[in-house]
């Protein structure tokens, strides 16, 4: 890359203090977001994906959470050790957040227009704040913006409320939008329109850091993908390479849930997540002794694919990943065929 990335995170560590222990919620996480790029962070609840994103602008509640290490560089500014004033300025003007449930982000007692103008006035001294609020509602595709601007949050459907939340986020014309499961609570038809809206905004040059558990959403939007488990990134690469060769055993189990009922159900055990070595080793079908050593297996490139696709797994690099890669091929073939090739009729289905 010729110029510096918009956002650069290196060795980020965020700990959360609970009653009986310290949870290493984010542990040595490093990634970049380029200008205009969409980076998707995928993982399950508890993987650290949300805490990572909330650490970036310091909105993670502290205490109990505390950023204990690493650097966050946003357009030349260091955020990890920034004072509250700078953080507030960046958070409002340059980086915006939206969340899964827009109604939580909206204040039920104020008209949406007031909430947008408040965001505008907070970050600039726009004189025609109301006009700007209307134009923001238009930009996110809310019809009759002129009258809708006076409506209250409960008068909007889930999908429309999320658009309002996006309008508020856009009030300060941010360079980076951090969206945490923004389409999880809406119907697929509504999700499709929200995906198109977000794609349009990134097409206009905004960067997007999107947190999701849904690989379908990733496939529809991402340029690059980070897969997280137990507070660490386990795999990263371009969306094409990760979907073509899901290389980490954990990524593979995530994909497998799209292609058939789990094989784990019968040997179900509560997953314990270790706080060193490979965090996934207790759930991993390929675990060996070496998985326990060190902080985290070093990132090795996945040779089967070009580009910067890399994986934190001891079987790569000096190891032998053939078996894992064979499974990756099998998964890629299956998910590519899910539309036309169902998992087979067991002969019991009864056609009316």
């Amino acid at each position: 890359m010729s110029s510096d990335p918009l956002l650069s995170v290196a060795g980020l560590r965020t700990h959360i203090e609970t009653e009986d222990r310290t949870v290493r919620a984010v542990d040595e996480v490093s990634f970049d977001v380029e200008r205009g790029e969409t980076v998707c962070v995928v993982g399950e609840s508890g993987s650290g994906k949300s805490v990572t994103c909330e650490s970036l602008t310091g909105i993670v509640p502290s205490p109990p959470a505390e950023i204990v290490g690493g650097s966050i560089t946003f357009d030349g500014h260091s955020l990890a050790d920034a004072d509250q004033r700078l953080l507030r300025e960046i958070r409002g003007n340059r980086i915006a957040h939206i969340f899964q449930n827009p109604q939580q982000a909206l204040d039920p007692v104020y008209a949406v227009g007031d909430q947008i103008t408040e965001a505008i006035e907070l970050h600039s001294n726009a004189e025609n704040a109301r006009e700007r609020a209307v134009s923001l509602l238009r930009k996110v595709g809310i019809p009759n913006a002129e009258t809708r601007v006076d409506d209250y949050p409960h008068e909007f459907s889930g999908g429309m409320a999320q658009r309002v939340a996006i309008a508020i986020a856009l009030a300060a014309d941010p360079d980076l939008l951090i969206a945490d499961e923004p389409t999880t609570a809406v119907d697929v038809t509504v999700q499709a329109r929200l995906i198109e809206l977000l794609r349009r905004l990134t097409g206009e040059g905004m960067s997007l850091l999107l947190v999701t558990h849904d690989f379908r959403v990733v496939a529809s939007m991402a340029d690059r993908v980070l897969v997280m488990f137990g507070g660490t990134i386990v795999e990263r690469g371009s969306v094409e390479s990760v979907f073509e060769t899901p290389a980490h055993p954990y990524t593979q189990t995530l994909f497998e849930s799209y292609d058939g009922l789990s094989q784990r159900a019968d040997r179900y055990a509560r997953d314990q997540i270790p706080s060193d070595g490979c965090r996934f080793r207790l759930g991993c079908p390929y675990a060996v002794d070496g998985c326990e050593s060190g902080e985290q297996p070093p990132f090795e490139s996945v040779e089967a694919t070009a580009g910067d696709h890399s994986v934190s797994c001891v079987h790569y690099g000096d190891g032998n990943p053939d078996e894992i890669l064979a499974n990756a091929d099998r998964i890629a073939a299956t998910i590519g065929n899910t539309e036309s090739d169902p998992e087979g009729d067991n002969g019991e289905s009864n056609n009316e």
Partner: protein
Amino acid sequence: MSDTPEPLLELDALKTHYSIRDGWLQREVGRVRAVDGVSFSIETGETLGLVGESGSGKSTVARTILQLEEATEGEVRFEGSPVAELTGEDLHSFQRRVQLIVQDPNEAFSPRMTIGEAVAEPLRLHGLSDDDRREAIVEDLLERVGLSAADTSRYPHEFSGGEKQRIAIARALVTNPDVIIADEPTSALDSRVQSDVLALLDRIRREYDVAVLLISHDIDVVRLFCDRVAVMYLGEIVERGAVSTVLNEPAHPYTRVLLESVPSLDPTERTLARPLTETIPDPADPPGGCRFHTRCPELIPPDTVDLPTPVWRAVAEFRFTLQAGELPDEVAETEAKRTVREHFSIPDHIGDESIAKAVETATGAVVGGDIETAVQTLAAVTETVCERESPAARVDSRPVACHRYDDTVEGKPLTREDQN
């Protein structure tokens, strides 16, 4: 249909309407037709998926089966007997034999009850008073769903969402039911946990030969779990049949829109379905004819109109976008008719005189700010069979409520080529 005289559970033209009341007299001012003529049946051990957007009425179907809502018309029959007429021991038996699993496992359990007590509760309610037997049954079930007998004395907050849903399955099984109604049972769970819980439910239902009615907005879940599927839109079933048929060769345009709204797992394939309009109409005032016609990308043109599919669709989109109040402001406020045409990709030349004239008048009305006139002008020349008559066709002997499959109506099912 098979030869068995009485299906296990049968819905016959079921309607569940809610009154909308207003004023201090609480007079009925309207009715939400949440479920509006739904029929299907479930046989012993069978799994039926019910899919549709929120507001389609699928959860109301579940609540009406369980008698949590009163049916307005039609009936639910269990082993041939109308459920609404059950009393005494028969009603008790029905309640024991049809169990519910809800979406949010946190709502399913009292925080003050141990999970042993929670799972045993239905047994107690249904009169099993022997403590030791109850305990033995509960411990056995917890082990079957992947937990341990020692878990009986723990409280709900000590379990993860996936574990709680396992406990909910154990509790649903404790009365040895014939039917489990699962309303979005895995929507609140991570995908891997979701697939574990579904696999468990699948194993259990085979072991116990339980029928499952799975209500879900997630087509992946239905594809993996169900034998048959019914697709609901605004209180009605638009299509049903075997999962392999409906989800791989969807016939109803609404089913196609639903399936094509789900992003592909192929990152190079990013096209998403585009219905004519976004808004789901108000179930208190559903559109006439086929309820999906205001959004249908495959709307049938009037007999007299012969236009290429994309042109016809552009005109229909123009009309229904105006009608739904979805016209983007930048188009609504333009002073150039050209902008309106371009927004809907309506070509300059339209090979049908009356439509061409109406489009010209309507774009003029839009520019003049008179949406009402624009809608009326377009409606006059585009009125189709889809908005006049309720469809009831069959495709390969399965019901598909779409005029495209009705031999008495002109208009054949669209192929992929037609659509582009």
